[in-house]
């Protein structure tokens, strides 16, 4: 779930210039640059290597899994993994789960954020403070009651209703509301005044003025929201143990620890192939939309 922190500092940061030169003497500055490069390269190696190792492990022949450079490429690990995990089905489940959460979050988040930013009604500030307060409620506390509730609703029985159990409890997050509020606050007041003078109603103003201007807010919120359900493990683990109704993160995890989805705990080649397929969609989406992820974090200082 989302956690707090509203940092005015990041906001300042946004307003300032990008990079700046440090160091008065050029020679010193050049040494500093070289040191910085070495640090950054070591860092990059440290952060990227495990991904390389995972992918290479998954395409190595059985007796070479774990080598840095295999002598040949083999897809046997992938075939075995695909025969044990219904990957297509699980990917679809993950897509429905993440998609459902994103759609509901965007609709509810934008409506609420708009009202908090642009409309004046009694109790508005109270509501906003309440939303900030919900960031303090750890999911681990409400997960037990939520589980009992969805069991009573019959949302844990294998079948499409599992998606209700997966999606609804995590469907709205305060982070989204806060991002939307922030964006709507930044739109120039003149636009709204002009529209009101022209006789536009509140829904019209939202629909025809605020929404078209806030496409970036939708993209950023959608992307940040996506990481949550796509990667979530604990909640799906409670909701379903039926491999056909699991999101991919859960089936991969259980496959990896030798649970219901498979029994290959010692076979790192197949486990890494499962891990790779789970990692690919999120990594691709992140690389394509990198700018927006970074901006989302810088804008809000909030984190999933």
């Amino acid at each position, binding site marked *: 779930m989302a956690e707090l922190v509203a*940092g005015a500092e990041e906001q300042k940061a946004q*307003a300032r210039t990008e990079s700046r030169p440090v160091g008065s003497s050029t020679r010193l500055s050049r040494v500093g640059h070289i040191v910085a490069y070495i640090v950054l390269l070591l860092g990059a190696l440290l952060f990227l290597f495990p991904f390389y190792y995972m992918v290479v492990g998954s395409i190595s022949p059985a007796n070479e899994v774990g080598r840095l450079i295999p002598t040949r490429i083999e897809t046997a690990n992938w075939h075995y993994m695909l025969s044990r995990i219904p990957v297509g089905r699980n990917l679809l489940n993950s897509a429905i789960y993440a998609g459902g959460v994103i759609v509901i979050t965007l609709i509810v988040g934008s409506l609420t954020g708009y009202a908090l930013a642009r409309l004046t009604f009694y109790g*508005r500030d109270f509501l906003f403070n309440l939303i900030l307060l919900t960031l303090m409620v750890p999911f681990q506390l409400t997960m037990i009651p939520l589980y009992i509730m969805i069991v009573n609703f019959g949302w844990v029985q294998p079948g499409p209703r599992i998606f209700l159990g997966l999606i609804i409890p995590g469907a709205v997050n305060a982070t989204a509301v806060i991002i939307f509020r922030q964006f709507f606050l930044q739109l120039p007041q003149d636009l709204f005044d002009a529209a009101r003078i022209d006789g536009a109603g509140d829904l019209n103003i939202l629909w025809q003025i605020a929404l078209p201007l806030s496409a970036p807010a939708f993209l950023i919120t959608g992307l940040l929201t996506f990481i949550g359900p796509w990667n979530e493990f604990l909640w799906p683990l409670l909701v379903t143990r039926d491999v056909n109704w699991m999101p991919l993160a859960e089936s991969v995890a259980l496959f990896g620890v030798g649970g219901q989805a498979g029994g290959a705990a010692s076979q790192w080649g197949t486990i890494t192939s499962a891990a790779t397929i789970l990692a690919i969609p999120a990594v691709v989406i992140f690389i394509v939309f990198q700018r927006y992820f970074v901006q989302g974090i*810088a804008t809000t200082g909030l984190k999933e």
Partner: protein
Amino acid sequence: MASEQATPGELAIPRRSRFRFSTVGKHPVGYIFVVPYVAFFISMIAYPLGFAIYLSFHQWSIVQSDKPYVGLDNFDRLIHDSLFWQSLRNTLKFLIVNVPVTVVVALILAVALNRGITGRAFFRTAYFLPYVTAGVVIALIWKWMFSTDDGFINNALSNIGLPRIGWLTDPFWSMITIALMVAWKQMGFYVILYLGGLQGIPQSLYEAAAVDGANAFQRFITITIPQLRPITLLVVILSTIVGFQLFTEPYIMTGGGPLNSSLSVVLYIYQKAFQSLEFGYAAAIGMVLAAIIMITAFIQRRFLGESAA
């Protein structure tokens, strides 16, 4: 991008209502806009929260129809539950390793990145990749790399003549290993926070210090670190919360072992609720965990936050 126009403080402090002519305000339509959120809040946050409190005072099992009120028994049991204390000690161990590593490494990487270096986007992407990747993936890769007999790290150690370490199989190391791995996973996020903070430090401060003859190191100590204090507070609080909510990594990498040395509080809640089916007791642990998180965040704010202003 719109966020660049943000003014400080707007995020945290609600705007004062400027128009309070009537009891409902200027735009009563606002109530309709917030109905979906309020409905969600009541059903999925407020009600479960109340339910959790209720549960913690009952002996509540999903398979038994008799769910008696037991007063403070669950909490009394908690105080005498050595496994619960063990999970708290494990969490403390996690934090002692994870938080300083996170702060120091994130700061170093952010300072290096902030030098206007070419390839900056590449480095930022590299650091951020583990953060967007599923905890499940990360835990599985590192479980393999850290495995005692045939893991990459131990193989590398033994190649240079060092002894193999039971990263995940030695009770001393298991939580330390997990703490380092989680620091690795979250690092990119904190680097971006620090980077934002660095770019917010007025250049004039550095210029003035340079005129006064301060060298680069002195400027770092006297300007950069104090100016970044609010970000450091943020990083400390967020990484502490991550530590208290630890679940996926011990579940996948160690199952909480060996000898419960990597049992996290949330993993213990999971075991009590969904393996022993003691929902009331698990809810009581959850209540205590929530209280600990809030108190810790409050204390950190006091300690780190006060002189920042």
